[in-house]
């Protein structure tokens, strides 16, 4: 019997040498005549251990990492003999960082072969759709409501209400759109799930189609994610062949088809109305709301537009897990959140856990602080439009409302860690600069405000009338916050104002940032 070896094909693992490791293992095995079967999976999300290679044993999968191609010979010996090795991490499921998580959405990611629908089914895949096909639209909606699921893209709007609106709007044609334009720095959960478990996204979208009566879906993936595009296209082709997509899915009366569309490097297209414009083949200019996409969305038709993670949460919920999902979490934030630990962090990766864990636990305890070993000075939560939090606010629980109460947002769940060498005035300037680069140009506060913001922060940094210019920045931020059409202009003030409020000592001609703030 051949030995089964699992190596990620996740872009994050490939970027640190997973392909070279796979080729080296294959070569060594061939040379020795050892029978091995390499399965390329997604990533488990323990990125400091990537490339992490696993081998199937009688006691479960055993992991090794981080592996390099040079380790191939000794690694193969250790795997074939089930022997000790300096990179041996033990049984994968027992690794504390993984064991501590509650993996509902990411249960299969890193475990299964993302190209195999059989493997997906063998790990509880398509149970949600099979059950949904026995229910009425109202019964499915009741499950989604019960789960308490809120949009994982950042806005946190209740998914059940969005779907219900589309279900109740009559039209000759409706659409399901998956927002996979994951442009926020520090986030990679969408990429990981699309590469590691694409069928869960397809299943979630199909359930949405069945619920609201839509027969066509689009997945809009950013062009910076070529591996995710390839993975989704491959999975869609497999699902079509297996009868899970196309006319009369699973022998039911429902038809549903999916198509991948690739973005073209515009951050603003992560905003839902801009994304719809882009899908229609136009400039990604934000639309004024109302009308809501649920009433008039893609090509003017009622459209469910959700983030990848929202769709990926659906199969578990519809497989009878609605109540169980809602039992996790705190306050109005129910279920689990795939949190992404990134930047200057010792143990970076994907950590899925119930809402309610504090920022401090995530950064210090789970993330292990910085990889440079210097003190953590600031963390940015929620991407380029999220606030910078100082250590003093590390008791904030991960929850939509708790972050809002402290003038921040959880966004798409990305946490970027900075050490004490960070210059917060520079970060505030970058937030304005990024907004200026990426603004779609439709509304004045965003288009002009961001450019004036960069200029004004430059004046502050060069010591020109500091107090007066700080007041100008604050005024600009207010105008942008309340006067912008979408979250790009509206939320850029979060990183800027939080940097100003919590790290004011950096906003002077000679930043004192090198003297630790804490």
């Amino acid at each position, binding site marked *: 019997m051949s030995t089964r070896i699992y190596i990620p094909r996740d872009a994050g693992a490939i970027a640190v040498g997973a392909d070279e490791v796979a080729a080296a293992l294959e070569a060594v095995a061939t040379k020795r005549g050892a029978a091995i079967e390499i399965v390329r999976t997604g990533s488990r999300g323990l990125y400091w251990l990537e490339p992490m290679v696993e081998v199937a044993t009688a006691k479960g999968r055993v992991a090794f990492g981080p592996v390099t191609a040079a380790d191939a010979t000794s690694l193969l010996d250790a795997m074939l003999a089930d022997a000790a090795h300096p990179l041996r991490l033990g049984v994968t499921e027992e690794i504390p960082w993984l064991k501590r998580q509650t993996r509902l959405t990411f249960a299969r990611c890193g475990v299964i072969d993302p190209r195999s629908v059989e493997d997906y089914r063998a790990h509880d895949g398509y149970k949600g759709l099979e059950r949904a096909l026995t229910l009425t639209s109202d019964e499915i909606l009741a499950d989604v409501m019960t789960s308490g699921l809120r949009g994982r893209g950042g806005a946190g709007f209740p998914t059940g209400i969005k779907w219900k609106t589309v279900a109740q709007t009559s039209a000759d044609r409706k659409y399901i759109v998956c927002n996979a334009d994951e442009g926020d720095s520090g986030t990679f959960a969408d990429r990981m799930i699309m590469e590691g478990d694409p069928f869960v996204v397809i299943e979630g979208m199909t359930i949405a189609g069945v619920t609201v009566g839509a027969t066509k879906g689009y997945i809009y993936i950013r062009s*910076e994610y070529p591996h995710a595009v390839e993975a989704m296209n491959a999975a869609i082709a497999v699902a079509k062949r297996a009868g899970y997509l196309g006319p009369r899915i699973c022998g039911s009366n429902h038809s549903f088809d999916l198509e991948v569309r690739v973005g073209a490097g515009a951050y603003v297209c992560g905003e839902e109305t801009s994304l719809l414009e882009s899908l229609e083949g136009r400039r990604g200019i934000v639309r004024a709301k109302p009308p809501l996409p649920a009433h008039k969305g893609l090509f003017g038709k009622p459209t469910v537009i959700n983030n990848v993670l929202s769709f990926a949460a659906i199969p578990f919920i519809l497989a009878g897990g609605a109540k169980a999902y809602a039992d996790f979490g705190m306050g109005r934030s129910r279920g689990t959140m795939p949190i992404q630990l990134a930047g200057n962090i010792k143990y970076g990766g994907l950590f899925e856990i119930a809402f309610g864990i504090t920022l401090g636990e995530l950064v210090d305890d789970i993330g292990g602080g910085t990889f440079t070993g210097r003190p953590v000075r600031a963390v940015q939560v929620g991407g380029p439009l999220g606030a910078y939090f100082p250590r003093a606010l590390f008791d904030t629980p991960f929850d939509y409302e708790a972050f809002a109460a402290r003038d921040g947002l959880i966004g798409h769940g990305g946490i970027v860690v900075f050490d004490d060498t960070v210059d917060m005035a520079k970060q505030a300037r970058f937030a304005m600069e990024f907004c200026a680069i990426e603004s779609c140009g439709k509304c004045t506060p965003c288009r002009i405000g961001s450019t004036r913001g960069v200029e004004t922060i430059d004046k502050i940094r060069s010591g020109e009338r500091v107090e007066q210019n700080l007041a100008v920045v604050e005024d600009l931020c207010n105008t942008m916050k309340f006067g912008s059409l979408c979250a790009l202009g509206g939320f850029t003030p979060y990183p800027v104002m939080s940097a100003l409020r919590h790290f004011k000592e950096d906003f002077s001609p000679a930043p004192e940032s090198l003297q630790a703030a804490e």
Partner: protein
Amino acid sequence: MTAVYEPWDAARGAEIIAEHSHLEGATLVILHALQEAFGYVPEPAIPMIAAALNLSRAEIHGVFTFYHDFRHEPAGRHVLKLCRAEACQAAGGDALAARAEAKLGVAIGNTTADERVTLEPIYCLGLCATAPSAMLDGRLVGRLDETRLDALIAEARR
């Protein structure tokens, strides 16, 4: 690995446009397909797309110029993209970007005089837990440091 592009040819362009023009909202799909074939979107293709989709030339020009991805002229033989977003900044990306600019003698967003290397910014490759990151002609590189960057630059210059 250098991508090999075809020289612009109107008949071939028309063929690519015809292949996709039946799609809903086909403009971006066509622009991507043209760029994949020719390495950039040649100016004569714009009125051809407009005619095929029954849209105005201004409309297609507007879409073409809105998105950062679409090239107006061919890039250098190799394209080195450095992530400039926050997670990579936190992990020392700014210093590496400055190093790349100094070594190649061009500012980010430009091509070297010998047309060998185009150095571009990219805002997030989704490799934020193995930052800083880069992409050389479609190949991803994480945990970038001075040694790895120098090797990438040497490779791109060859």
